[in-house]
């Protein structure tokens, strides 16, 4: 009993009782998953905005006296005249090694029904990439396990490769096979059958796919025993355009965390053309530039 009392006292001591200054705004109009907010004079681009009911928004369009905020969830209960406040934090997600073997959404919340994940850190979704001087030149190959690719167009660790092709020609299959091959190589290295092999962890970002397709991919990886060293970030076709647009950034945040731990990571974005469509949709509703 005394330990519970101590815990409670510690919790109460942690609660700040001082008065804090917060920057607030009033929702002027809402629709299409976007709220136009008057006020929020101190809001920054990509800052998280807190709405009533625990809903989080993302400040994407800053105008004079007005901010365009996209909802990162269901914003149907948000109505005109409601108050929202700036959090002062840029959009960040929980990351960590515990996310390997799990399926999460864009905000890093698990959606596989396997319970909560304890995060090691919070990483911003928008981060400046390491400069060209900081990067090593490509020296270690990444074996995809597909003989034709490894022989004719080998891929190196630290390289980007575009998989391009007509529909139903096996683009996703190449990516999934590569992930499975990495898992097999990691296992072989752990058993001592493969020398000087640094394990590769995988992030698979599914954007705008049918939920049934995502479930099939998960089961393929699970059956092949490759899910344990893979994190799947899923933004299905039924998710909001904002979530689909942000999914690659979230996937990258997971990968960057592993990279910062000195690990090698393979990240697959499947596919970026759907992300481009989602971005166009978001930028048209927030009246920000649609890009080129």
């Amino acid at each position, binding site marked *: 009993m005394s330990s519970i009392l101590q815990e409670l006292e510690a919790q109460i001591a*942690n609660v700040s*009782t001082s008065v804090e200054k*917060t*920057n607030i705004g009033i929702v002027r109009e809402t629709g299409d998953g976007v709220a136009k907010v008057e006020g929020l004079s101190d809001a920054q681009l990509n800052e998280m905005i807190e709405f009533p009911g625990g809903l989080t928004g993302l400040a994407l369009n800053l105008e004079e006296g007005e901010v365009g905020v996209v909802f990162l969830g269901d914003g149907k209960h948000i109505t005109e005249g409601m108050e929202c406040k700036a959090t002062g934090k840029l959009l960040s997600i929980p990351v960590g090694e515990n996310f390997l073997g799990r399926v999460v959404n864009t905000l890093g919340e698990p959606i596989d029904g396997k319970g909560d994940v304890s995060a090691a850190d919070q990483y911003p979704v928008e981060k400046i990439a390491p400069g060209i001087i900081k990067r090593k030149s490509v020296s270690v190959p990444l074996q995809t396990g597909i003989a034709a690719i490894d022989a004719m167009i080998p891929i190196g660790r630290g390289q980007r490769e575009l998989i391009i092709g007509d529909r139903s020609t096996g683009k996703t299959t190449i990516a999934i096979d590569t992930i499975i091959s990495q898992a097999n190589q990691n296992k072989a290295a752990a058993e001592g059958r493969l020398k000087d092999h640094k394990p590769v962890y995988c992030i698979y970002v599914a954007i705008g796919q049918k939920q049934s397709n995502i479930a099939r991919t998960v089961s393929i990886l699970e059956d092949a025993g490759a899910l344990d060293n893979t994190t799947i970030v899923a933004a299905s076709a039924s998710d909001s355009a904002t979530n689909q647009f942000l999914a690659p950034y979230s996937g990258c945040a997971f990968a960057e965390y592993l990279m910062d731990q000195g690990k090698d990571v393979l990240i697959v974005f499947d596919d970026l053309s759907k992300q481009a469509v989602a971005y166009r949709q978001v930028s048209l509703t927030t009246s920000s530039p649609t890009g080129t």
Partner: protein
Amino acid sequence: MKVSKVAQSTARRIFRLCSKDGQVNEEHLRIAVTKLAEEKPRDYRGMLQALRRLLQAELVKKQVTVESAVDLNKATSSKVKKSLCSQYGDDLNFDFKVSPELLGGMRIRVGNDLFDGSVKARLERLQESL
């Protein structure tokens, strides 16, 4: 009514010319508005609309709402006024309200800034942390 970008930038320019050291000169702005209404340049309605919005935003910045659970005595209210005026300038418009749902403490809103020192907010913070 949709205000064009040209009208918006012209209104901003008029507003800037009618302001000095961050303060709007009422007389100058009145003259500018009268001139606009008389001469009716192209898209003058949009300009007036944009000017109205800019002036409204400026007024909101100077509006202070002080909410408390009980009626504040004169000494406390003047202390609040004094400390806010020293922080935000002397030309603030104060509005004192009584909101029993705050349970205690004060909730002060200055423009877009909110200082919530009410018992209700503290209880909510405690609830979130537990």
